[in-house]
């Protein structure tokens, strides 16, 4: 039995709870990235509204926010609360997103780029929130301004004392306007750029949360905004030190540290944590398998593998071998995640092809070539015993199908179920299997992002290469199971075996009837 560390086990249990509550389509843990984008949209729209009424001057800022909060509570106040709570929710989903990738070991190997670029993105979000609190210009805003300046003063790039600007008689509207510009334009542009880099190595990037989840989240935010509207502290007073602060711990957690450490030490701590987070993908490193290889003899340049590749590692280019086809595909080894989804996309990955002794396909995985897939399937089918013979196709990142092996149950693991050509299912049914049981990562949670989605679409929605209509669907079942779902998958495979056995009995009875009739 595969060892599952307690963090992963706990996380998968939480994920299962959300599957029960929301279903896989709306499970928020499967959509943490898009949910964060959704919260950003709420922040953007509410922020634009707030800006219309916001006075970017020292004397007017606080009063304009107070006006929105109290005089225009039904709209301005709600917008302010939405702005704050959506910002907080975004940090919560980002942290959950990071924790998820860590718990499921999806931050190392080929995923290092997304992880490393994600860390500074979080800091950009945090600094955006900090300047937002600054603009309210209440006691909290003053506290944030003074301590942020002390942090800036500790950097060798800043000459003079920025913190001294917040002494009586020093502060001007111009400095305040600069902060407004940073919060409203400079930082958001930087954040968008950082997000673009963060998803640069991914194909089919989704930035829209499922509608149901977005609606539910918005209703929840709106309800919270009406029940507990966001309010300000007392106005900033340069003669007083705010004694008790209702800190927003999502954004302002670093400031209390300055009461215990110097600004330099606080920077060292922050930079240390950042550096640690950024080198995590190599602690220890994770080896990605060999990259996919293109076999031009079998490739007609249809480009389906390039369309299906979840990591943008395959491109279509002009033919280089003089063959009659116009295009061919090329693999970028640095981007390839070695998932094998491209093998499942290639129409040449057809085990029925027997013109050659060795089965070759247009794009193949050196560590598990399609010929080996066919040979192992054939061997497994030949070894099956019993009345009802089942073959289970699984993947390396979900429940370990080796545990399901029995005299009448053969198993085969793919790098990803997206690697499995639909014709292999037909091949198995024609070569000794009475039923094909397919498992793999939980629905909506493919380790390689799109493996199980493409497989489902090839089976049911006509995505190429399709599972042919004539294949008896009643002999095929798909049950997704994570590494911890042993109990459920065993129950399901027993159910499936019984169903196929009943079908066989029915067939035998009908055959006898036919013989009698004849």
């Amino acid at each position, binding site marked *: 039995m595969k060892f599952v560390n307690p963090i992963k086990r706990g996380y998968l249990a939480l994920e299962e709870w959300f599957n029960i509550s929301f279903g896989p389509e709306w499970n928020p843990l499967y959509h943490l990235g898009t949910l964060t984008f959704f919260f950003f949209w709420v922040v953007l729209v509410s922020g634009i509204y707030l800006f219309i009424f916001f006075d970017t001057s020292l004397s007017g800022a606080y009063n304009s926010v107070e006006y929105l909060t109290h005089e225009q509570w039904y709209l301005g106040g709600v917008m302010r609360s939405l702005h704050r709570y959506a910002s907080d929710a975004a940090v919560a989903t980002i942290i959950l997103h990071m924790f998820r990738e860590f718990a499921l070991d999806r931050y190392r190997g080929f995923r290092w780029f997304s992880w490393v670029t994600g860390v500074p993105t979080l800091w950009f979000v945090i600094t955006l929130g900090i300047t937002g609190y600054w603009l309210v210009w209440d006691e909290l805003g003053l506290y944030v301004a003074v301590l942020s300046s002390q942090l800036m*003063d500790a950097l060798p790039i800043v000459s003079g004392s920025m913190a001294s600007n917040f002494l009586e008689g020093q502060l001007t509207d111009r400095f305040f306007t600069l902060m407004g510009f940073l919060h409203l334009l400079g930082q958001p542009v930087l954040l968008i750029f950082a997000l673009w880099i963060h998803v640069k190595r991914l194909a089919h990037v989704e930035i829209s949360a499922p509608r149901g989840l977005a609606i539910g989240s918005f209703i929840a*935010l709106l309800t919270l905004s009406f029940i507990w509207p966001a309010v300000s502290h007392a106005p900033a007073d340069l*003669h007083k030190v*705010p004694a*008790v602060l209702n800190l*927003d711990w999502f954004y302002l957690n670093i400031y209390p540290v300055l009461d215990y450490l110097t600004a330099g030490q606080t920077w060292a701590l922050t930079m240390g944590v950042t550096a640690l987070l950024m080198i995590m993908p190599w602690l220890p490193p994770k080896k990605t398998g060999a990259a996919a290889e293109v076999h031009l003899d079998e490739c007609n340049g249809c480009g389906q593998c390039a369309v299906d590749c979840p990591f943008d590692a395959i491109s279509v280019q002009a033919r280089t071998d003089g063959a009659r086809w116009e295009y061919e595909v090329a693999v970028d080894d640095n981007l390839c995640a070695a998932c094998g989804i491209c093998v499942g996309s290639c129409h040449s990955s057809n085990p029925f092809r027997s013109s050659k002794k060795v089965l070759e396909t247009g794009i193949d995985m050196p560590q598990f070539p399609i010929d080996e897939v066919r040979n192992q399937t054939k061997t497994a089918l030949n070894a099956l015993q019993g009345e009802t013979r089942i073959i289970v196709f699984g993947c390396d990142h979900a429940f370990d199908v080796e545990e399901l092996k029995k005299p009448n149950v053969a198993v085969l693991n793919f790098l990803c179920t997206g690697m499995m050509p639909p014709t292999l299912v037909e091949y198995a049914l024609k070569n000794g299997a009475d039923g094909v049981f397919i498992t793999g990562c939980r629905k909506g949670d493919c380790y390689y992002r799109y493996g199980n989605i493409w497989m489902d679409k090839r089976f049911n929605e006509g995505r190429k290469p399709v599972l042919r209509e004539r294949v008896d669907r009643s002999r095929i079942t798909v049950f997704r199971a994570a590494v911890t779902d042993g109990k459920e998958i065993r129950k399901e495979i027993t159910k499936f075996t019984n169903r196929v056995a009943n079908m066989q009995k029915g067939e035998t009875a009908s055959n006898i009837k036919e013989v009698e009739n004849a």
Partner: protein
Amino acid sequence: MPSPKRLILQILNYTVFMGLVWYFSFSPPYVRLAPDESMITLALSHAGKPVQECRKNTQEEMAKLAPNMRVLEDCPRERSPVRIEVLMDDESVIDKTVDPPGLYKDQGVDIYHSVKVPTGDHRIVIRMNDSVLVDGPTHQYQQAVSLEPAQLLVIQFNGGQNQFILR
């Protein structure tokens, strides 16, 4: 539309999530100063004196220099570190020595430092040395203050008047 069971579970999950978002958006409160505390902030922007006195160039030395570089006095660029000590009721609350920044240590010193202090009546003594050529303080100032809870007392140095200001 989700089933009634799912709807109830979703409402429960949203409530827990938004409850956490709401709580940590302002709680737990951070107590920066106790009710009997106030704060002293030293905000100093001051250039130390040159580390050596200026020296008059001799005629021979002047002749060796290019015409456009000839000056009567040769003054060192490097400035002295600034040491400042703030005592409250004879107890040191701030004691900092800051070297002048810059490649040639020729720039002014900026100090911004805050300390929490008890409220009430106190005698503040400030001593500063800004010259390596002088032993002991070059500037000294004292003043009685009465600090209220959460009050901010700022200590600055006015270079023009060559004296400390407390406000």
